[in-house]
């Protein structure tokens, strides 16, 4: 896994980054409430349905229990995209539309990667909405509050993702 381009900027070391992110999480706990991100998808959809099918949005429990657009949640996920944009613009590292590890296993075809990314996205949100939260809303926020649901969810998602990656990339030819 040596990068081909030596000009790639290094990622931040994890210890100061973890302190920084914990500080942001505490800012959220002090200002609004537990940080969450999968709920932002529901908020986005609620805004869509309120516009185009208001009766459907009003009739569904999952949309009733979430704030709509114009809320902290919506601003938070849009902020995430903005933060990623600023981060990416100020960072000299080449971005690959198809990750190297995927290319080595499935080839460079974009259709296959984008299709699987769509499927993965479907599953992470379906699972997160069933569990009540995601990596951030349930695991990171939950474990911060010492909640058993967060620890349980965290253990399951790590174990299953590791198993999935192992099955998915099994026949990857050795790099390095």
């Amino acid at each position, binding site marked *: *896994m040596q990068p081909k381009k030596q000009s790639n900027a290094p*990622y*931040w070391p994890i210890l100061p980054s*973890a302190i920084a*992110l*914990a500080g*942001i999480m*505490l800012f959220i*706990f002090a200002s609004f*409430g*537990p940080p969450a991100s*999968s709920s*932002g*998808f529901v908020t986005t959809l609620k805004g869509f349905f309120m516009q185009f099918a208001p009766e459907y949005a009003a009739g569904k*429990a999952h949309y009733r229990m979430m704030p709509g657009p114009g809320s902290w949640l*919506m*601003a*938070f*996920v*849009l*902020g995430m995209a903005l*933060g*990623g944009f*600023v*981060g*990416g613009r100020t*960072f000299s590292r080449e*971005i690959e539309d*198809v990750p190297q590890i*995927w290319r080595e296993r499935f080839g460079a075809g974009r259709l296959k990667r984008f299709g*699987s*990314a769509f*499927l993965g*996205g*479907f*599953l*992470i*949100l*379906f699972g997160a*909405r*069933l*569990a009540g939260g*995601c*990596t951030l*809303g349930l695991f*990171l926020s*939950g474990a911060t*509050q*010492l*909640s*058993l*649901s967060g620890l349980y*969810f965290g253990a*399951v*998602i790590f174990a*299953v993702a590791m*198993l*999935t990656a192992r099955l998915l990339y099994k026949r990857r030819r*050795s790099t*390095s």
Partner: protein
Amino acid sequence: MIDIWLGLFAGTAFGFVIQRVGATNPQKMALAHLMQEPHIPQFMLLVVIFSATGLFFLDAAGDAVTRVLPISLVGTGLGGVIFGIGWGISGYCPGTCWAAVGEGRMDAIFTLLGGLAGAAAFAHLHESLIPILYMPTNMGQLTLADWFGHPAAALGFLIIFFGVGVWLIGRLWRQQDA
């Protein structure tokens, strides 16, 4: 209105940090899942160690807004299994994919669209699925403090438990790299 500025500020800072640490990079995430890249999982555990410690004091000062989600053996567990499969396939989480879209990753756009479809599908089925899968094994808003009887003891346990996790990941990850 102030909520929107707070959310935008927090989200922007959050997205920036996770981009800088590499959590928005699906290559790095896949290697983390394959036990060849220890930094992302170690980073996540360290975040919890620091934020849990901070929240302990914030809570003691009475300034924290907390909301513990209930644990449902089947609902949380099955949700985690479905989530884990999707995470393994795409290399993105619901949060990181927003930041990765901002960063300009094309595959993250498809994960975001898939996520909207998945959330819409679940929201449509909420009334049928929650009573079957979530409610029967819902054990309520349990925390480690309920087990240990004292929040400080529970926090101490979490710090040691995750600290050992960080150490173990450092030992075990990358060693399989032939």
